[in-house]
């Protein structure tokens, strides 16, 4: 067992256990994020924007996997729903981006219910495969239908205007994603400490006992899917206008796995860990570019090692 390594990590992590220290660290990180584009240049800005996108996605999946304990292997489906809703409504129907957001959220809620309902009585193994199946169904549908642009997807998506400000440079999108990420963090924290968050905890630990306690497990689980879906969908919406073009390849199983890796590598259920995981997942390929094809293998091995030696991820969940 890799004991020395875990002890070192434990020591660093233990420094941040008091709330004021965590807020301070958070503030420092936000400040760094705010000045990053200016000091690091356009390429770094694009990469960091990507990292922030994954922060939101990972926090969303964290609600489903980390809080509610539902192993969703098809999370990219929600990402796709948001992206394609925005893509279709703005490109084909000419709606203004901000008007399409409620539709994206609505579509996400519907998707969350559709995907969540069949899994309600299933055990985690089956749940995982069913969600995987749904993820693939969404991807194939996007590829096969004309309204989603077929395999070529939708291109030429217009960038949004906000009170006369045209958001269309990487620089500007970066700050939009910073705001999104901050909102995502705040919402995640509130959820964790809410009654719903506690209900998820009970359901995750022992569903039958939770039922006996009077928790409506059906509603609680569906709530997890729906909220996770909304996170994913909003990410997808902004992803679509940022990139200007979307295609089915971005919503594959590999994408779902990547988001899941972000959640786990950092630590399920623990928000700072999930954020760290998202950065690892996005930055590592760029920093390790020379390693080319070894990247994915390294991630996979890393994931395996973490599962074997630190089942709660790099950042441990206090008081499981």
């Amino acid at each position, binding site marked *: 067992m890799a004991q020395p390594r875990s002890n070192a990590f434990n020591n660093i992590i233990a420094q941040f256990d008091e709330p004021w220290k965590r807020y301070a660290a958070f503030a420092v990180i936000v400040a760094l994020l705010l000045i990053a584009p200016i000091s690091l*240049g*356009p*390429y770094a800005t*694009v*990469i960091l924007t*990507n990292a922030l996108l994954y922060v939101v996605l990972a926090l969303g999946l964290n609600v489903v996997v980390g809080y509610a304990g539902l192993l969703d292997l098809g999370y990219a489906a929600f990402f796709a729903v948001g992206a394609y809703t925005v893509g279709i409504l703005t490109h084909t129907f000419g709606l203004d981006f901000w008007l399409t957001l409620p539709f994206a959220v609505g579509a996400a809620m519907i998707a969350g219910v559709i995907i969540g309902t069949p899994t309600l009585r299933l055990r985690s193994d089956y749940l995982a495969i069913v969600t995987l199946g749904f993820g693939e169904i969404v991807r*194939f549908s996007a*590829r*096969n239908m004309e309204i989603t642009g*077929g*395999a*070529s*997807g939708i*291109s*030429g998506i217009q960038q949004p205007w906000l009170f006369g400000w045209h958001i269309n*440079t*990487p620089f500007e999108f970066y700050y939009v994603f910073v705001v999104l990420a901050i909102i995502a963090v705040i919402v995640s924290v509130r959820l964790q400490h809410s009654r719903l968050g506690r209900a998820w905890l009970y359901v995750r630990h022992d569903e039958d006992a939770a039922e006996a306690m009077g928790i409506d497990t059906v509603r609680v689980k569906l709530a997890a899917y729906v909220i996770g879906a909304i996170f994913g969908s909003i990410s997808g919406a902004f992803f679509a206008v940022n*990139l*200007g*073009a979307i*295609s089915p*390849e*971005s919503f594959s199983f590999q994408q779902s796995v990547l988001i899941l890796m972000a959640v786990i590598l950092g630590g399920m259920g623990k928000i700072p860990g999930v954020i760290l995981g998202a950065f690892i997942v996005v930055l590592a*390929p*760029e920093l390790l*570019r020379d390693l*080319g*094809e070894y990247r994915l293998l390294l991630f996979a091995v890393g994931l395996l090692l973490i599962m074997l030696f630190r089942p709660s991820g790099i950042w441990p969940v206090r008081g499981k």
Partner: protein
Amino acid sequence: MKLTTLLATTAIAMALAGPAYAEMKIGILAPTTGSEATYGQDMANAVNLAISEINAAGGVLGEQLSSVIGDDGCDPQQAVNAASKLASSDVVGVVGGYCSGATVPTLKIFGDASIPFVITGANSTKLIPANPGNAFMINSTGNDQVAKAIEYFNSVGAKSLAIVNQGDAYSQDLADLTKKDWEAAGNTVLAFEVANKGEQDYSAIVTAIRSANPDAVFWTAYYADGGLLIRQLRQAGYQGTIAVGDGSNSPELFSIAGSAAEGVIGFSNPIAEFLPGAKDFIADYTAANGSPPGPYAPLAYDGMHLLATAIEAAGSTDPAAINAALMDADYPGIAGQITFTPENTLARSNFVVLKGNGGKWGLAQ
């Protein structure tokens, strides 16, 4: 301690900011990893060969060229990252682009950064409307390929067709275009199938084709799965013509399909060994890389030379000037004359018809 760190950081930053000596950087966008890596590597090699020739002749505008590779892995997301990296690397122009689906989102990035982009491989018609004006396609587009294919099918008296694609941007586009034009000419499409990537068993498609028994089957996707389909078609006893598009023009098709690939027709951009003016190129490429050039090497080579010529003609590295020079280009490439239509596509069709013969491609008569 702090001062040393500051100095060290500044030094590193300055070093990373680029050399101060006269050097022009060219970006190469190609899938050097992933399933199309052989094509991508091939393209990169060809561009570098062109660069070494240009440098030996004195460079461009007096400066030596160097290349920066952006690996798009044939994936749109990765392509965007690669393109951003190139865009912020102070490149004067970009040469490359193989997978159409991955190339489309990069157009905006190069457009916003005003970087001239010579596209040497990707040729889906979806690139045309997405082009902000600074991209130039030197591989004949899907429209030309369809015209060539229909011309060939007519020449062998085919009246019915089965079209199989793989559900990706390039092959689906080609399949749709073929269907449209074929039916518009009064012929029939008896089967329009999609082979999902990752499936090895095409028996359902093969049975559908065999039962419909069209005069010809047209596979519009890439060689790896094309080889499997050809094998299974022949194993099942289909005896009509089998034709493949330019995504399957790799010699690897024959190792996968085996003897089933005898007589298979391929529509392709010119492969080096069939180009009259490419003898020196083949020799130089083989000497530099230890193996002969692949199907997309001549175009990548031409693309680099074209860009260099345009920069010389523009007299500066100003993007607008280079753009204008490219639009007026009339360059004799080894793959054929390069001039552009108002839509920045190649003004003539460079497609030829190949035929599988003895385990490799030969020119069909």
